[in-house]
């Protein structure tokens, strides 16, 4: 089974991101730790488990500048076999559709049975690229999956919908996007880390994939980033619960008028 996992390198969830005053559509990157997008980790883990159970090959693919190699090495340390980076240094404004064009072109170059990725990246929070890749390759997709079983050329997926779950059967090849709950991603073992260090990571560019800058012109363009409005100082009640609970209910009813 050939599995392709799409990953993205994103700022750590703990990072205090702030807009760059000299380029307000970007964040200040210095001092920020970058990690594998947490939802993509579920996808990598799932791919490795499938390989361990059924045999096969796991290729991880990312789009990013040279620093994104680090994310690929993390995936290799976990157990992925190969990695590929699509360099976007010349096209820093790529939008989700542009990224999906590059990814679908890159992964279509060799046969695969399954594409896995996280349900969304925690930087732009778009929740689009996996599904875009499926559509561009004319494959079915199942998004926000918390359980995956493979049998007879099919995947049986459990996915989240508002207030419930759906069980969906899909013919392979397909694109499946991972949600928290799918598995518990492993920590790389020492041997994996050594392997990952030495692994050669091929790099391709949009032009080497045969896609012009014109085709990648973004129709979704961030104009600026800003911090959300600061909240005013709140009223903090201290004292006996008998008093504070009643006062809180009164404030919520009479002042905030929320119920």
């Amino acid at each position, binding site marked *: 089974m050939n599995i392709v996992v799409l990953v993205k390198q994103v700022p750590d969830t703990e990072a205090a991101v702030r807009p760059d005053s000299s380029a307000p559509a970007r964040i200040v990157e210095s001092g920020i730790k970058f990690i594998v997008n947490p939802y993509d980790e579920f996808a990598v883990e799932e791919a490795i488990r499938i390989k361990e159970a059924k045999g096969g090959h796991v290729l991880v693919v990312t789009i990013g500048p040279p620093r994104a190699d680090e994310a690929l090495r993390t995936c290799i340390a976990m157990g992925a076999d190969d990695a590929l980076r699509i360099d976007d240094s010349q096209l820093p404004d790529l939008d989700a*559709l542009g990224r999906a064009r590059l990814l679908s072109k890159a992964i279509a170059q060799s046969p695969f049975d399954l594409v896995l990725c996280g349900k969304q990246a925690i930087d732009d929070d778009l929740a689009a690229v996996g599904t875009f890749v499926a559509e561009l390759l004319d494959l079915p997709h199942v998004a*926000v999956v918390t359980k995956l079983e493979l049998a007879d050329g099919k995947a049986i997926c459990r996915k989240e*919908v508002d*207030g419930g779950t*759906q069980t969906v059967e899909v013919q392979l090849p397909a694109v499946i996007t991972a949600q928290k709950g799918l598995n518990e991603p492993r920590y790389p073992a020492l041997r994996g880390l050594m392997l990952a260090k030495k692994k050669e990571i091929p790099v391709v560019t949009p032009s080497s994939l045969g896609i012009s800058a014109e085709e990648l012109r973004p129709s979704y*363009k961030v104009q600026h980033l800003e911090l959300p409005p600061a909240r005013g100082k709140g009223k903090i009640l201290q*004292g006996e619960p008998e008093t504070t609970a009643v006062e809180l209910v009164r*404030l919520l009813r009479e002042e905030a008028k929320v*119920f």
Partner: protein
Amino acid sequence: MASEVLVWVEFKDGVIRRSSLEAIGAATQVAAQLKCTVAAAVVGNADQQAMQCLDEVGVSRVYKVEGVEYQQFEPCRYADALQAVVKQSSPGLILMAATALGKDLSARLAARLRSALATDCIGLEVNDGQISVVRPVYAGKLRAKVGLSGPSPIVTVRPNTFAVPAAQSNRQPEVTGISAELGAASRKVTVRETVYSTGEMPDVSEADIVVSGGRGMKGPENFAILEELAKLLGGAVGASRSAVDAGWMDHQHQVGQTGKTISPNLYIACGISGATQHLAGMSSSKCIVAINKDPEANIFKVADYGVVGDLFRVVPLMIAEIKKLK
């Protein structure tokens, strides 16, 4: 020039979801500037009552795509259906609610139409015919203003952000039936079953009021008091990542960077310290209440109202007081 803003309308149990009415509200706001009318797309069967609801919110046309193949939601099929609607309508903008289904469908449809997609938007405006949106990014740590170009951009709007349009006298929108064919991808997917969790509680992403618990809840059994408070207020129960990771609550309830980002009218955080990732997910709530024993807890920094105290005493007393007032 496009003549319509198209809204995909989502139903649950035959009734239009409020978040879809909010999307119609957002569409109405921008339609005049785009010199457009508002049209609704209904895929699958809608009952009479639901259709009447569309009459009252100022929709001038309803596109209906009916058929047994749309009985259960499946994004590839629904994208086939909406693609046929878009072919007829050529909308200047497509809107839907950023629900689980809306996000899923919007992505498939955007790629199908090669349209710009902006999900989970909290602001939408038109300047000189150019559409721009505001969306929380980095789980709400930042807000991005994004310009959208190209044909029929697709925007999903975050529930509880836009107002439902005021009821109007019956407008009797024109109903246009559309037929669509299943594409290759759609024929490869089968929805076997959909199971909704029991209970009448709304989903945390759509609820007006969310009562959340964190590590301070000490165990899964204690969430019962939060459920009681939530039920009393007609709200939903949320949880912090640590409560979910401890296995006390299902991930569907998780609020924060690797859970749901929400904007309810009232958010009550009980026994939640306020980690960055949690604050990111709930800090756009309109009114935030924190109940925590530790006066130094981070959550108090974003709270409009805070109670320093033992939630196991404060919450039951709140419940008793609210019952007294009702």
